């Protein structure tokens, strides 16, 4: 029996699949979140250098990783949507952007909160901080471009181009900022030498990363469902859903 790989690229069938999957991901995300926070706050030992303040790592690092992964994932789906003209992939890309921007913001914010007790300053022009900030700008650019275009298909394609241009530019920007930073030698603190972590700290962090993944998938599926409903509101199957009064 041949598997129909493209079954779920139709918004209608994806809609119901996503509806079934969201509770699973929410459930797993909640469990992982509880486990991760428990390990982070109660099991992991106090750091002898940083004291209790280091525990912000359990939020900060997952958020920073997600912010970068999600941009690549977003550009991937946007590119697929541009290349194969598949509506659903573009909708996914649009749905990913706000979550990615949120994680970027969290990473920046928690980074500042962590920086204050550790380095004595909210912000340093370190290479990582600066490129995270620029990543935030790229997300904002993507979202505001899509928001400014009324025709959804044009918004998809224009967004895809800017996302792909951004992906090409991210390594260039990252290395530019890094070289710029070493040239200036202004920052007195180095973020680069990560101290060896206790294994429980690492476990807690990885659980939190998984929890962030599950949360992102759940919220992105939810947002995609809403976008599908919005864009397909003229179709028969949405009308039928409405008649039945079931939106799930």
């Amino acid at each position, binding site marked *: 029996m041949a598997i129909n790989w493209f079954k779920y690229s139709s918004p209608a069938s994806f809609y119901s699949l996503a509806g079934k999957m969201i509770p699973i991901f929410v459930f797993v995300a909640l469990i992982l979140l509880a486990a991760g926070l428990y390990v982070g706050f109660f099991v992991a030992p106090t750091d002898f250098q940083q004291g209790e303040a280091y525990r912000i790592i359990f939020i900060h690092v997952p958020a920073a990783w997600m912010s970068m992964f999600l941009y690549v994932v977003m550009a991937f789906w946007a590119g697929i949507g541009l290349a194969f003209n598949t509506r659903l992939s573009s909708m996914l890309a649009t749905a990913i952007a706000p979550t990615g921007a949120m994680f970027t913001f969290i990473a920046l914010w928690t980074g500042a909160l962590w920086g204050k007790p550790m380095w004595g300053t909210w912000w340093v022009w370190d290479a990582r901080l600066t490129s995270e900030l620029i990543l935030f700008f790229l997300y*904002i650019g993507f979202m*505001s471009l899509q928001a400014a275009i009324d025709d959804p298909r044009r918004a998809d394609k*224009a967004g895809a*181009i800017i996302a*792909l*241009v*951004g992906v090409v*530019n991210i390594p260039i*920007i990252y290395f530019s*900022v890094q070289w710029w930073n070493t040239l200036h030698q202004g920052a007195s603190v180095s973020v680069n030498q990560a101290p060896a972590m206790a294994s429980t700290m690492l476990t807690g962090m990885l659980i939190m990363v998984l929890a962030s993944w599950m949360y992102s998938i759940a919220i992105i599926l939810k947002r995609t469902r809403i976008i599908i409903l919005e864009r397909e509101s003229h179709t028969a199957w949405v009308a039928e859903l409405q008649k039945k009064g079931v939106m799930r």
Partner: protein
Amino acid sequence: MWIIKRDLLLAMRRQSDVLTTLFFFIIVVSLFPLSVGPEMNMLRTMAPGVVWVAALLASMLSLGRMFSNDYLDGTLEQMLLSPQSLSLLVLGKALAHWLVTGVPLVLMAPVLGIQYDLPVEALFVLTTALLLGTPVLSLIGAIGAALTLGLRGGGVLVSLLVLPLYIPVLIFGAGAVEANMAGVGFDAHLSLIGAFLLVSLVFAPWAAASSLRVSLE
């Protein structure tokens, strides 16, 4: 090639547009000493950054004109229909934009550098870096201009899209001058800007052409 000539001719018919960009550049650069004080030592260290940021803003402000007039009178649609490769057309338009806005900035930069008491060699490096860097600004800007064609609030939007992409050029452009003033070699910076120029020469017209197709669908 004819498109460069045509765009230059159009620009010459409307010289005020060219002068506006140039004077914007001059005014922004001249505002900084007024805001931070006339102390020469500080101005000298600030000069490369100030000139570069002003150049970025000036070149970005004029991006709207790159396609919008042709879009409004329908010329752009005819260009899309023509058998000529669209990427080449975009390349031509970007070069024309650079000749109209970038080159005057490059020529004016040494004069502004003198305002900031830059040494002669640094003036030379600043001009060379701008000469290599401003075409990159026009090329990357073409993508943003094509994407925001005909949108409401396009002018502000273009800055959101394009300014983050300008950052590498800004870093190495200003870095070249600083390196020169610090007595370190500046060749590496200029080579990197040259590399950006080559890469954007290849990819930017292509990306801008597909953006134009999206915008005019």
